[in-house]
């Protein structure tokens, strides 16, 4: 039972970073390998606000989200959109963007190392135990989960029930058809990439409430987000949410039943099995 609840709490906070990558890959068609670094930057932001101004991470989001939006919009506009315009096919764009964002991830790691140094960071906000079904859980975990769920619900409602959200999904499904209904595809892609980055950064700020992190841990989260997106199916919002919970549960189960050092290995195992058995993901329909 404690595995189930612990897994759900962890998975719930993974949802955000995976949805962020999903927006960037599914809509803007950029496989962003610097996604994890954006997440860590969000975590550093929350840490900085907490230690510098005693501001709690939820307040910090009010600053982190718009900053991450602007940063990612700039990345798309100045670094990635030339690649998009140049690419003759989706495959070529994929290769180009993977190389470009992989390089970008090293730049971010270097910058964060220079600013914050190489040690591990954590802070103690809401570090109290709450008893749920006779088991203690950190209040910080529960609060992070609730905030993540609220953001996630808002994002899904926006995607499903507004004209601009529908336009985003239209670009994800068929960019040519989108331009035939007067959607500005380039601008919508930039918007999706920027929102994806903001969502990922807020995921990082929330994760930092209970995880210890350092400047170079981003790559692990990039891989986790990637695993979730592939697991859930590219472009599948529902699949992404389910897959995030699956990964959270699998990691928690392995950590408490076998060995905490094996969580990443377990995540890969899940990933490889899915790639072999259902390469389009659990919910993907595309061949």
């Amino acid at each position, binding site marked *: 039972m404690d595995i189930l609840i612990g897994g759900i709490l962890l998975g719930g906070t993974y949802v955000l970073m995976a949805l962020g990558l999903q927006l960037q890959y599914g809509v803007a068609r950029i496989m962003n390998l610097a996604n994890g670094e954006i997440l860590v930057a969000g975590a550093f932001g929350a840490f900085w606000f907490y230690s510098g101004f005693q501001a709690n991470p939820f307040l910090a989001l009010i600053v982190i989200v718009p900053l991450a939006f602007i940063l990612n919009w700039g990345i798309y506009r100045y670094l990635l959109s030339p690649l998009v315009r140049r690419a003759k096919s989706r495959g070529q764009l994929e290769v180009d963007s993977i190389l470009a964002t992989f390089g970008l991830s090293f730049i971010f790691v270097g910058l964060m190392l220079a600013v914050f140094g190489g040690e591990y960071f954590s802070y103690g906000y809401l570090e109290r135990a709450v008893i749920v079904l006779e088991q203690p859980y950190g209040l910080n975990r529960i609060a992070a989960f609730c905030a993540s769920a609220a953001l996630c619900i808002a994002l899904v409602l926006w995607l499903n029930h507004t004209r601009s959200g529908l336009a985003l999904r*239209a670009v994800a499904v068929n960019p040519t058809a989108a331009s035939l209904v*007067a959607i500005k595809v380039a601008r919508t892609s930039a918007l999706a990439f920027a929102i994806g980055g903001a969502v990922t950064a807020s995921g990082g700020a929330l994760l930092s409430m209970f995880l210890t992190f350092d400047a170079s841990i981003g790559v692990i989260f990039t891989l986790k987000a990637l695993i979730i997106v592939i697991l859930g199916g590219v*472009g599948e919002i529902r699949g992404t949410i389910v897959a995030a919970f699956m990964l959270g549960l699998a990691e928690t189960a392995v950590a408490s039943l076998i060995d905490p050092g094996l969580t990443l290995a377990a995540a890969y195992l899940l990933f490889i099995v899915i790639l072999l058995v259902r390469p389009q993901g659990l919910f993907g329909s595309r061949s």
Partner: protein
Amino acid sequence: MLEIRDLSVFYGQHRAVEEVSVTVSRGEIVVMLGANGAGKSSVLRAAAGLLPVMNNAAILMDGRDISHCPADEFVEAGIALVPEDRAIFADLTVLENLKLGAYPKRARQKERENLENVMSLFPKLEERRRQKVRSMSGGEQQMVAIGRAMMSAPAILLLDEPSLGLSPLLCGELFRSLAVIRSAEIGILLVEQNAKRGLAIADRGYVLENGRVTGSESSEILSSDERVRKAYLGGD
């Protein structure tokens, strides 16, 4: 009125369309005939703003030069294309596809009215409004494609082989809907393999051969033209 002047289309070094001029007014159906590879689809794609327009050519909508505008401004100017591959949003529902058709600013105010019109033109779509388009038949998908174009409140509708893959029964239905659309003061530029049907419904027609216009006449004259009969009507 849509006016295409001296349009040429290049694919690399290959010239697919040479100095083609075509006009379409509101409330008329204009058919474009031509063999496979004659350049019909290229003309339509250029007229929808999907291909670059050379300097000496021009595309005008109601007298305004839109040659160098991005595709979304062609739609805002009142030109809606249903391309050969239909370009529908396969993973979205019928209703979402139609709503997206009303994404252009020009169409937003009359969205509800246009939706009612489309639903009465294609009652099938009303029944299937929550179905994903991917899981519909070819004919139903064609209705979604035309319906979506109608949702953008076009002045000129460009249709690339709309009857492709339809049964004779559905085909008849489709052509009746085209007549209804024309009576709503919308102009239609129609590319059609079924030249007989196309000429029967059209007011005027163009003949395209190897990327050049070689004939521009009223439908009656084209239907009785010896060359047209031989090439496109399979006549004797």
